[in-house]
């Protein structure tokens, strides 16, 4: 009887070791399969640079033989002033759209890229023509980050909040 008990104890010990090893293995497995939060460091910095560069880029809008930058064109659009050859808000929307396509790709191209969708908007306190400038492309689903900058529209005038929201897939590293 004593011997039988010892054998049972040995078996129990062995099973215990096996169970412990399996638990340790499962913990390691869980750690290795755990999806690490994708690093968006580079893309985020890139989008910040994109917004800053876009603001100083020259446009086709000419007033008194001077081409305006996007920053200046935003102010003109807010004040509802026209360019020599057309509506400032329409030119602004067209210029922003062209720049975004050049940088991030058009609606079809962007779907296969790490950043698979974006949404550009300008927000102003109160009513403004700038609120109509909304550009969206690609897939607006998944993880996202927003890059924004504040543009003063003038003395005693509100600030414009320029936002570019980007959606990216989990494989982005």
């Amino acid at each position: 009887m004593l011997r039988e008990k010892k054998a049972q104890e040995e078996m129990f010990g062995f099973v215990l070791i096996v169970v412990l090893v399996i638990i340790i293995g499962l913990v390691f497995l869980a750690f290795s399969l755990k999806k690490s939060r994708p690093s968006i460091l580079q893309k985020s910095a890139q989008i910040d640079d994109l917004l800053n560069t876009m603001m100083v880029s020259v446009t086709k809008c000419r007033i008194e033989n001077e081409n305006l930058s996007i920053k200046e064109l935003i102010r003109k659009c807010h004040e509802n002033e026209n360019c020599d050859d057309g509506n400032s808000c329409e030119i602004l929307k067209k210029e922003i759209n062209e720049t975004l396509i050049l940088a991030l790709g058009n609606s079809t191209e962007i779907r296969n890229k790490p950043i698979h969708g974006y949404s550009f908007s300008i927000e102003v306190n109160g009513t403004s023509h700038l609120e109509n400038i909304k550009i969206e492309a690609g897939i607006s689903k998944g993880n996202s980050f927003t890059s924004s900058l504040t543009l003063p529209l003038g003395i005693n005038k509100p600030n414009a909040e320029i936002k570019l929201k980007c959606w990216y897939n989990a494989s982005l590293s």
Partner: protein
Amino acid sequence: MQLLLVMKTDMLNVKSSKMKGKGKKVKGKAIKFCPVCGSTEIVLDSSYSGVFKCKSCGYRASIFPSKKERKAQLKIQEMAFVLLAFAILASFVLLFFARFQYLSIIKQAEKIREERAIAMLHGIASLPELSCSSSSVCIDKGKLEVINSSDRIKNNYKELWKSSNIKSIVIETKTKTYVVYESSEKGNFQTYLTYVPVCNHYCEFAKIKVKLILPENA
């Protein structure tokens, strides 16, 4: 398999304990074997009293040689199997851990490389040889034109770019592509890009692309 072995040895222990209980001190169990075929399936022949018979070859005899299974040997064998199984399990865990560590080191290296590349992109745009005289970050178009057209200037900076593991630096505007540096090195590269204005009187939207040479194991 290991469990079966343990159970088998335990059963043997039980049997030998029973024998011990009868007063006989036996170290292991005696097993009869056939001297002709070596089989251990020896049974009492029902036709003759006191005669044994080999089940596999039919050899009959009253005395069959016997061998003893040694308990100590079994114990050692059992221990060896347990140790082997434990070593195999431990090595699996170790391999898994090593792989996990290796992957996390690679990820960290990538992240550091990425951070370095971002800093480098801004650093290149802020170089006095390229940057505008104004305080904002931009590239002077005039300086860029000069560097793009002069191989002598490009060669002067060759060592600087090489020491930073840079394969090429290209600045693309909507209308033109400027090559600041390009080496003929071969291997693995990764391209990093950002956006920077290229200005003279007006500023143009431009991309700055840097190709970095990756280490061989990356």
